[in-house]
Every structure is written in C-alpha cells, then in structure tokens.
C-alpha cells in the first residue's frame, strides 16, 4: 500500500476516534443534533451511490428511508422485537425496495423519466403508509417503544455511539464496494453506459447491485430514524425530505463519500441556527443551495480536495 493511501487510512480512523468523547461535552439537545448528523450520513451515502457513482437519476431515496423506518418500527411496535434486531431487516427491506426501483432503470428508463417515476414511487409509498393502517398506524402515526440494544435502553448519548458504529461500518463497506470491480463498473456506467455495455460489462446486473446497496444503506438509516425519533408518521417522508437529501449531497459533493459526511453535518446543523427566526428557514435554505451550485458545484469535498491531496476522491463528480 502506498504511503499516501496508508496516511489516508489513518486519517480516516482519526475522525471516529476524535468523536468518541464528544457526547460528554454536549447537552441532550446538542447530542440529538449530533445523532441526527450521524443518521443522515448513510442516507447521503446511499443517495450518492445511485446519483453520484452510478450516475442514474433515481429520486427514490426517501422511499427507502421510509420503508426502512417503517420496517423497523412495525417490527418493534407490532412484533415486539427490540430495536437492534430490527436494524438488519430494515436494511433488507430498503434493499428490496432498491431492487424494485431498479426495474424501470433496467428497462431503459433514464434521466428525467426515471426521476419522475421514482418521485411518484416515493409518494405512492407515503400513500400506502396512510392506507395500511392496521400495520402502520395510518395517518395517526406509529408510536414506537424505546430503542434497546441487547436490553439496554438507549438515550441520546448512547445512541451516538451506536449510530457512530453503524455509520463507520456503512462507510467502510461502501468504500470497499466502490474500490472493487463493482465500483469500477459503476464508474464506467456513469461515464458512458453504451460504451460500458459494448465493452462487455453486464450493466443490468451492476445497476441492480448499485440500487440494492443504496436501498440497504438508506434502509439502515431508516432504522436509525425509528430509534431516534420514536414516532413514525407518513408525512415525514415527503418531498421536502427529498429536497433536504438533494441539498446534502449537493453541498457535500456528489459522488464523494467525504462529501456525504460533510453535507450531512452542515445541513443538519444549519436549520438549528434558524430556529429562532421563524419562517426564514426555507428561504435561507434555497439561497444557500443556489450559491453552492453556482460557486461550489462539486461541493465542500472539492474544497478539501483542493486543499490537500489526501482528500482527493476519484469518484467526485467530474465535468
């Protein structure tokens, strides 16, 4: 392994290690915000796999998020399972949804068509949460029992460590995926799908894998949502949520894992600052997004990459 790569790896581990003592210094409100950031990291990473790495316009991220959250929530509230057991099923549910949404992509639906279709899918999922009342509590929402880890109730501080562990695992796993032949295939598909197919890459298979992984990661994030918020409501997984996820990957840097982390941190912390100026949040958000796209189109990750080559990410969306 080259010196730069080894240094990069060490730097990577520095971050979670540095974060370990953080909860001790924060009050419960700040801990909650920190937990929120950690939850949005896999949301962004999953979104980035499809939009940034595969280059496909699938706007179904919120659908995976909601499906994972409801899967976890229903298993907790209706089947009585403790939270930590529901994490994997939530991921698998998201994975299944990912495969489902890969179908139109396989049939050749692309660009804006795919975007609109996946948007419609997300809204239809929301409608089905409302209608499947016996299971989901319908529009009244689903109140969830406290999250448990091996029988241990999780408060905001403990959640921090659990979420941190999950986020680290998912980041590493995604990095492994992207550095493997799968990732190279993704890049080829993103670059020029026809050429990739012409070179003999079974694009269909890799598209499904990409979507499936995205769904899995975001589904796990959904389980984290269930643990953190403790109450599921269909309206939480709507278009506004999708816009937030757009903003996260846009501000962070589309296609970049580092970008996912940065974007999640910035866009979760920012609304908190506006809480005391009621009503101004949406305008500020829109303006911020416009400015970022104009002046920093490749996101904060590109800023870091310019500053030091150790942050360079080959998946950062090229021109």
């Amino acid at each position, binding site marked *: 392994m080259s010196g730069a790569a080894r240094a990069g790896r060490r730097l990577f581990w520095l971050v979670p290690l540095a974060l370990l003592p953080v909860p001790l210094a924060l009050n419960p409100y700040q801990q909650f915000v920190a937990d929120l950031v950690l939850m949005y990291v896999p949301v962004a990473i999953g979104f980035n796999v499809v*939009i940034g790495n595969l280059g496909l316009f699938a706007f179904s991220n919120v659908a995976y998020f909601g499906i994972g959250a409801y899967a976890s929530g229903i298993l907790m509230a209706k089947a009585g399972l403790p939270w930590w057991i529901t994490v994997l099923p939530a991921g698998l549910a998201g994975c299944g949804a990912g495969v489902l949404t890969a179908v139109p992509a396989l049939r050749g639906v692309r*660009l804006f068509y795919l*975007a609109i279709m996946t948007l419609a899918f997300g809204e*239809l999922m929301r409608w089905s949460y409302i209608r499947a009342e016996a299971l989901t509590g319908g529009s009244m929402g689903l109140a969830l029992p406290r999250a448990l880890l091996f029988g241990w109730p999780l408060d905001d501080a403990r959640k921090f460590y659990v979420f941190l562990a999950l986020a680290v695992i998912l980041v590493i796993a995604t990095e492994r995926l992207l550095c493997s032949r799968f990732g190279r295939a993704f890049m080829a598909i993103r670059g020029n799908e026809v050429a990739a197919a012409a070179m003999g890459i079974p694009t269909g298979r890799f598209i499904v894998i990409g979507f499936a992984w995205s769904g899995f990661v975001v589904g796990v994030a959904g389980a984290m949502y269930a643990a953190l918020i403790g109450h599921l409501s269909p309206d939480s997984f709507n278009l506004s949520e999708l816009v937030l996820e757009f903003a996260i990957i846009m501000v962070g840097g*589309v296609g970049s894992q580092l970008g996912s982390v940065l974007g999640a941190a910035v866009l979760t912390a920012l609304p908190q600052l506006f809480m005391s100026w009621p009503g*101004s949040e949406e*305008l500020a*958000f*829109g*303006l911020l997004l416009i400015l970022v796209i104009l002046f920093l189109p490749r996101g904060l990750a590109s800023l870091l990459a310019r500053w030091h080559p150790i942050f360079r990410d080959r998946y950062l969306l090229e021109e």
Partner: protein
Amino acid sequence: MLLQLVVSGIANGMLYALIALSMTLVYRATTVLNFGHGDMATAGAYAGFVLVGAGLPFIAAFALALGLLFAAGFLVQRFLLRPIMRAPHFALATMALAVGYALRGAARLRWGSEIVNLPRPYPQGAFMLGPVVVTNDALVITAAVLVLFVLMLLLFRATRLGRIIRAVFQTERGAALVGINVPLFHGLMWGAGGALAAAGGVLLAMIVPLTPDMGEWVLVRGFAAMTLGGFGSLPGAIAGGVLLGVSEEVLGFYVSTVFTDITAYLVTILVLLIRPRGLFGRQALARV
C-alpha cells in the same frame, strides 16, 4: 353522472394542460426539467394578488404578473442556469429546485401565517348545459387556457418568431449556424415558461385560496400530464392534461375518492412502465 364528471374533469384538465405545456416548452428548449415550476406558478399568483390589491384592474394585474414572471424566468436562466449549463444534469435539476424553494420561502416569510385570496373578476356561479352543471370557474379557465393555446399555435405557425423557435427545437447547432442567437433563445424560453406558469398560477388562485405550498400540487400534476402525453410533445401535454383531469374525476367517483389524489402518481408509474413514450412522445428509452 359520467358526463358531469367528464365535463368537470376537462375543466381541471385544462389547468393541468397549461402547466404541462409550459414545462414542456422549457424542457424542449433547454432539456432542463424545471422542478421549481410549481413554485413559479405560486409566485405568479402572489404577484397577481399584490397587484390586484394595489388597485390595478384584473386584466392589467394578470398581464403584469405574467410580465414579472417572464422576467424572472429569463433572469433565472441567464444568471443561474447558463453558468452551470455544462454541469451534470443533477446540478441543473437541483438548481431549478433550489430557486423554487427560495421562492416558496419568500412567500412563506411574507404570507406564511395567513391564507389569502385572489378575488375573481367575474361573478361566481354555475349554469345548466342540458343535464350537466357548468360552473363559471370552469368556463373561464377553459376559455382562458384555450385562448393561450390558440395564441401559442398562431405564434408557432404564423410568425417569424415561431419559425425561429421551431428551428431551434429541431437542431440547436443548425440554428446557431444560421445566426440565431441560441443563448438568448434559451433565456426567452425560460421567460415564456415563467409567464405561462404565472398564468396557471393566477387561474388556480381564482378557484382556490393562495398558500405558499400550492406549487407542489401543481408540479406533480404537470409531471403526470407530461408523462401521459409524451415527454417533449406539445400537443401531448395538452392531451395528457385533459386526460388526467378526466381520469381523476371518473376514478374518484366510481372507484374511490382517494383516486382524485393518487391518480397522478399511478399514471406516472404505469405509463413509464408500460409505454414510456406516452401518447405522442418520441422514443424515451435508452436501450443498452
């Protein structure tokens, strides 16, 4: 009963058609789907509201609101989209979305706590046409949209500007080669899209109270209509809009009232799965 539903559906569908048409225009001209279109319609409606409130007669306010949003669309394209034209599609889509979101935020800041109304310039009411009830609203909206369509048709077919538009639609490079100012064209098309969005917004605001969130509803219906009619097809947008409006009413009555809500989503998904090019669109799939 069916006839009543169809008539009512056509009136709604006309509004959807207008939205779909304006979005299609922008899409054809610049290949960008304006995710902020709904919020532009809302902005147009609020502009009309402010102007009427300032004492202007309705027609003048309507025309001025259209003018304002024309300028807005042009400026957005010129200063926010053109600089990033080479960026990946995702960035363009997000920019459109961000502009819409900012417009919505501005509206919320000013009018978020209250619901306001755009007063109609004509008396409310309804009359019987045979066994069918036709409301004044339905009549005015249908007429207004038809007038706009006819104007657009005349523009396209019978004027020099229309020839220019058709030329650029056919081939941008070719048009540029013969001296057409394509970048200016893009800006003007976005302006036209903005103006038509404003028209849709004002018409909508006459029948429904104004809230900053009107945009989302508008956007979804527009997408569904475009999908049904065939992306990029102008007559398709109209056909898709009307068909969507009628389906919503018919399904809503005969099957379940929830369909007035979700028909748009179902249509989008089913059409893209079964016949992606819709009714009149061109080849939509990228076969690899």
